């Protein structure tokens, strides 16, 4: 069991999301950084889709009430166990009574805590992720509060792991920059924008505004405008769609995006770069680079192959530790 001593800024239970219900208007939810979530689970010996805690910027204080293994991947929020620094992207053994705390963010803003066995919360609509606005899923449909106790699914305790705190073997971390270049495909309404905007999106930087959350990031920069204003008919949006309301400030739609939208989409972020944008904080800068659909699909396949290699590597290591 995990006991939440302090909640942190926004700590929620998430997995890879809710699929098959968007046709009913129900959002996908799920983790903002799927790469970090999947690797954290693999390092903890779980299936990639097991529920993890998504920890945002100011981390919680968590006490473990049993011996287990954990992994923290994603943004580095200076994690410590019993006041001793611990590393990211590796398997860590914890013992009953140990306390996990966080400090200031070193890079990124979202850390994923996977615990062996996965967090035991009920599935709602085939997912354990939290849908905050509807108050369903995850842990009682809400962000965690002090005093919450989250159960763990049964998992055989790794005896060797109990002897060593931290494995010296780690997965190469993603490089989270606070001014990344994000690869983007032209959106379905790209052609409706004026010449200036069509060039500008690829040449000028944007900054992440304070009106940014799991639903989407509002960006600020020179406004992006349509050649001539026109009313668009609402259609589906996707994780990483960049839509532009009439004020010209783009909004990047993220994990808690609505299912459909009526603003023109100037672009669509390559799936492999979603973790990079999801780790940005208000005030961070980003710029966009154009990429083709074919390149983006090739990068996606490349990343999946990389994850398969990591998975095989972790399995070998886990055998050695036994």
């Amino acid at each position, binding site marked *: 069991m995990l006991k939440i001593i302090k909640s942190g800024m926004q700590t929620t239970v998430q997995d890879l999301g809710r*699929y*098959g*219900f*968007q*046709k*009913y*208007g*129900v*959002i996908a939810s799920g983790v903002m950084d799927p790469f970090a979530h999947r690797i954290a689970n693999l390092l903890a010996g779980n299936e990639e889709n097991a529920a993890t805690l998504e920890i945002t910027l100011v981390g919680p204080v968590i006490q473990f009430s049993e011996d287990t293994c954990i992994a923290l991947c994603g943004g580095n929020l200076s994690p410590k166990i019993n006041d001793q620094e611990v590393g990211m992207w590796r398997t860590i053994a914890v013992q009953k009574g140990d306390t996990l705390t966080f400090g200031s963010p070193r890079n990124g803003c979202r850390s994923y805590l996977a615990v062996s066995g996965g967090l035991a919360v009920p599935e*709602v*609509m085939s997912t354990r992720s939290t849908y905050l*606005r*509807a108050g*369903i899923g995850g842990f009682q449909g809400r962000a965690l509060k002090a005093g919450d106790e989250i159960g763990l699914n049964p998992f055989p305790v790794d005896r060797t792991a109990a002897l060593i705190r931290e494995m010296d073997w780690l997965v190469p971390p993603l490089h989270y920059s606070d001014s990344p270049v994000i690869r983007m*495909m032209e959106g*379905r309404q790209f052609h409706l924008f004026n010449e200036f905007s069509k060039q500008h999106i690829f040449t000028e930087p944007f900054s992440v505004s304070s009106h940014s959350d799991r639903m989407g990031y509002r960006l600020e920069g020179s406004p992006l405008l349509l050649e001539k204003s026109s009313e668009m*008919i*609402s*259609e*589906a*949006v*996707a*994780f*990483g*769609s960049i839509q532009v309301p009439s004020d010209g400030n783009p909004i990047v739609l993220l994990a808690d995006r*609505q*299912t*459909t939208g009526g603003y023109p*989409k100037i672009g*669509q*972020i*390559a*799936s492999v770069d979603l973790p990079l944008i999801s780790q940005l904080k208000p005030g961070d800068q980003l710029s966009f680079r154009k990429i083709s*659909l*074919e390149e*983006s*699909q090739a990068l*996606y*396949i490349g990343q*999946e192959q990389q994850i398969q290699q990591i998975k095989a590597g972790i399995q070998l290591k886990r055998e050695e530790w036994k």
Partner: protein
Amino acid sequence: MDYSFSSLGDQAIVIDVAIEINEEVQKRIRKISLLLEQQAPEWMVEYIPAFTTVSVFYNPLQADYQTVESDLRELLMQAPKEIEAAPRTIEIPVCYGGKFGPDLEFVAKHNGLTAQEVVQIHSSGTYSVYMIGFAPGFPFVGGMSERIAAPRRDSPRLSIPERSVGIAGIQTGVYPIATPGGWQLIGRTPLRLFRPEKDVPSLLRAGDQIIFREITESDYQAWQEDEHAEDH
């Protein structure tokens, strides 16, 4: 039938059915949805039907864009195995005005009508559900009389109570969950449109016909108690 296709990022394809919204287009969207339900391609993750488009999400490890497009072209040439029966008609009871419909007077004044006339017009129409989107179970419906059309509020409310019935332009709809929004609120229904505990979590689906029926506040309270009892 000729459809055009384009990508929505590296994991989705959009089938463009038409450039305007009408009943005929709605039927074609339903037909595509049925085909996708009955003969789901193995690379398909899910699909989202909208007013004039159907977007299909796929697993790029199983098929690339070209494969998805050609599979869909082939699928769309077929007819669905079972066609849906006549559209369902769903009655939505509404307690108009008062604390549930703080903008009813505004809508009336805007159109030079009395509040009761707005209620009468709103509750005498038959509406078609064109799509579900924006929020869980939120219906975009057509068929509202222009006589009760009203612009959105200048600044959206930060939170609209769930089950509020509103008007925006020539659209009317019901908010299934509490959410910020700029619609003019004319009443509230005791009916739950979003039912997360059900296999099909949305009471309404695209293609349904809906009618609104006026109820009193005491009907509303009684109804809500019944719904509550049904949940437990």
